[in-house]
């Protein structure tokens, strides 16, 4: 990194953190600390919701995903606007009427204390683990690409987030997220302009998009459905609109890291507008990030891409007996690229003439070279696996950061790194804030120390923020000792998310089912999910649906049995 990059990076992050601490100094009571004095306007809420959802991995992985798989990932978000409308109509008025601090507090009003505590504990387990990953995932990529120490990167991200989240609570999280979101979107749009600017002079923007289309990257929407195969296809219109709806309902309606964002609103109207703002802008935002990834793909049709984007892993292979094998494959890949480049220029010329036959012929030639290149990349991954058995062979997360480091000018590299670190900090801050508020409000204040002073609970919230922060740092530091860590955390999340969503669905929509029925129903549902995990081959994403449906079914059955017994007792 050059000095100008350091100035931009430290200046941007330093300004955001200091501004956040200064702007929110002196929160004296729990209302101010955990709900930001209910003073947030809709644009702060909306940006805060978007910043919480956009973690660093969003900005690192999404362009890489588009590079590999095209635009179709955007369909994953089609259910989100519908979820925003449903939550605005049903959930927000209830939370406001009951003046809750956390989503789980509502469950005591609707059911009883044990159901509230069960949901809170399930949330703390899954979000506590996820907070570690939110720090670890970008830290491993940044440390590899920049040559920084992994532990130092984790400590810097973690300690800075703890400092401002502890200092100003919910308001500090939302205020800093507003600035972070501006940096993120501004930085990404500038990066997009730069990629287009770096295309060859004889290739216009329209031709670049046409080349991407001819190479199968402009596959934004897919309405097709096959009853046998489409269930396995993660990204099509139908899975996006249904699966995305369920996922968004549980994430925005029951996950405290998001609920806290809109509970800090000045009024119901401000909170609703914040959520609807997210419903309007989330899909265009994802579209832009994916499109930048597609433009990076087009850029690499005219400029030599590395055979493997993770330079750190490549260096490790060069230090083994497999180095010559890798060198030979690299040279083969470069030769294919030389030939492919001529074919791509041929495709651009054909597109200029609008001659369909010439376009089809050029397209066929380009696709043949692309397949040959892909084949070599697979062989490279095989060599990496042989040389460094525990190395990650998926390199899509490194595509965008590799482009930034190699091609962007001084200053912009610092800005883009500020984008990635801002995203890491914004989502971690929301998580720590939510973990602290759930620990204090749902466990400590409710079941341990009920008669403390407001100052006492603010102090307790600060201590819990620091405590959860250090647990997250510790987990992130030792995360590399576990295999398939991200998948492991996703599995843990899916094991609990379905049950939590089921409890909330019953609470909102099935008034006949009461506390005991839903509590024991949730425990049975969790047992079913655990059975599926240990004794079946069902894909873990389905645990969300199974857990949710099981809570509803067991709730109905148990309520019928309990109701019958009560009638007998009365008689």
């Amino acid at each position: 990194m050059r000095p100008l990059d350091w100035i931009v990076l430290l200046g941007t992050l330093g300004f955001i953190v200091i501004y956040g601490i200064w702007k929110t100094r002196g929160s004296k009571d729990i209302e101010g600390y955990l709900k930001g004095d209910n003073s947030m306007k809709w644009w702060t809420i909306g940006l805060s919701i978007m910043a919480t959802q956009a973690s660093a991995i969003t900005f690192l992985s999404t362009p890489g995903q588009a590079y590999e798989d095209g635009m179709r990932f955007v369909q994953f978000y089609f259910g989100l606007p519908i979820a925003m409308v449903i939550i605005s109509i049903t959930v927000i008025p209830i939370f406001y009427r009951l003046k809750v601090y956390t989503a789980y507090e509502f469950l005591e009003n609707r059911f009883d204390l044990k159901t509230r505590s069960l949901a809170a504990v399930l949330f703390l387990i899954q979000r506590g683990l996820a907070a570690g990953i939110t720090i670890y995932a970008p830290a491993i990529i940044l440390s590899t690409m920049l040559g920084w120490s992994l532990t130092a990167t984790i400590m810097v991200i973690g300690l800075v987030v703890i400092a401002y989240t502890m200092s100003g609570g919910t308001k500090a999280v939302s205020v800093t997220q507003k600035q972070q979101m501006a940096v993120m979107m501004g930085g990404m749009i500038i990066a997009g302009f730069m990629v287009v600017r770096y295309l060859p002079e004889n290739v216009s923007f329209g031709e670049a998009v046409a080349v991407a289309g001819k190479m199968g990257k402009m596959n934004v929407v897919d309405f097709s459905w096959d009853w046998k195969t489409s269930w396995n296809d993660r990204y099509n219109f139908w899975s996006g609109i249904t699966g995305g709806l369920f996922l968004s309902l549980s994430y925005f309606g029951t996950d405290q890291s998001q609920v806290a964002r809109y509970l800090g609103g000045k009024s119901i109207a401000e909170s609703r507008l914040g959520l609807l703002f997210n419903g309007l802008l989330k899909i265009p935002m994802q579209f832009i990030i994916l499109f930048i990834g597609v433009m990076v793909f087009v850029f690499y049709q005219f400029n030599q891409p590395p055979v493997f984007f993770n330079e750190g892993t490549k260096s490790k292979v060069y230090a083994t007996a497999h180095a010559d094998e890798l060198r030979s494959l690299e040279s083969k890949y470069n030769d294919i690229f030389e030939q492919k480049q001529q074919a791509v220029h041929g495709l651009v010329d054909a597109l200029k003439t609008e001659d369909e036959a010439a376009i089809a012929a050029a397209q066929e030639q380009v696709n043949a070279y692309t397949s040959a290149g892909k084949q070599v990349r697979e062989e490279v991954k095989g060599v990496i696996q042989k040389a460094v058995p525990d190395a990650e062979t998926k390199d899509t997360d490194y595509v965008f950061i590799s482009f930034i480091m190699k091609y962007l000018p001084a200053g912009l590299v610092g800005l883009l790194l500020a984008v990635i670190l801002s995203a890491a900090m914004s989502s971690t801050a929301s998580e720590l804030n939510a973990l602290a508020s759930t620990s204090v409000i749902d466990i400590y204040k409710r079941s341990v120390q009920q008669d403390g002073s407001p100052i006492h609970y603010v102090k307790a919230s600060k201590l819990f923020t620091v405590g959860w922060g250090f647990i997250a740092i510790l987990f992130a530091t030792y995360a590399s000792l576990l295999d398939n860590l991200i998948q492991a955390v996703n599995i843990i999340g899916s094991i609990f998310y379905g049950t939590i969503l089921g409890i909330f669905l019953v609470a909102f929509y099935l008034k006949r089912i009461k506390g005991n029925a839903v509590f024991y129903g949730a425990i049975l549902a969790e047992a079913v999910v655990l059975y599926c995990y240990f004794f079946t081959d069902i894909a873990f994403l389905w645990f969300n649906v199974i857990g949710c449906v099981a809570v509803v079914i067991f709730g109905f059955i148990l309520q019928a049995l309990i109701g019958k017994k009560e009638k007998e007792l009365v008689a």
Partner: protein
Amino acid sequence: MKNYHPVDEEPPTEKPPFFKTWKGMYWLVLGNLAFMVVLFYVITKFYE
């Protein structure tokens, strides 16, 4: 412990900007989704 309130009781809220009722606002979000799906479909077909 707080009292339980029936969930179908709609509390009074401010009007949304630009619309007379919240329904208009919700239709704006859903309409925007529909518009984007159609736009993306056109883009997909155009560049296929």
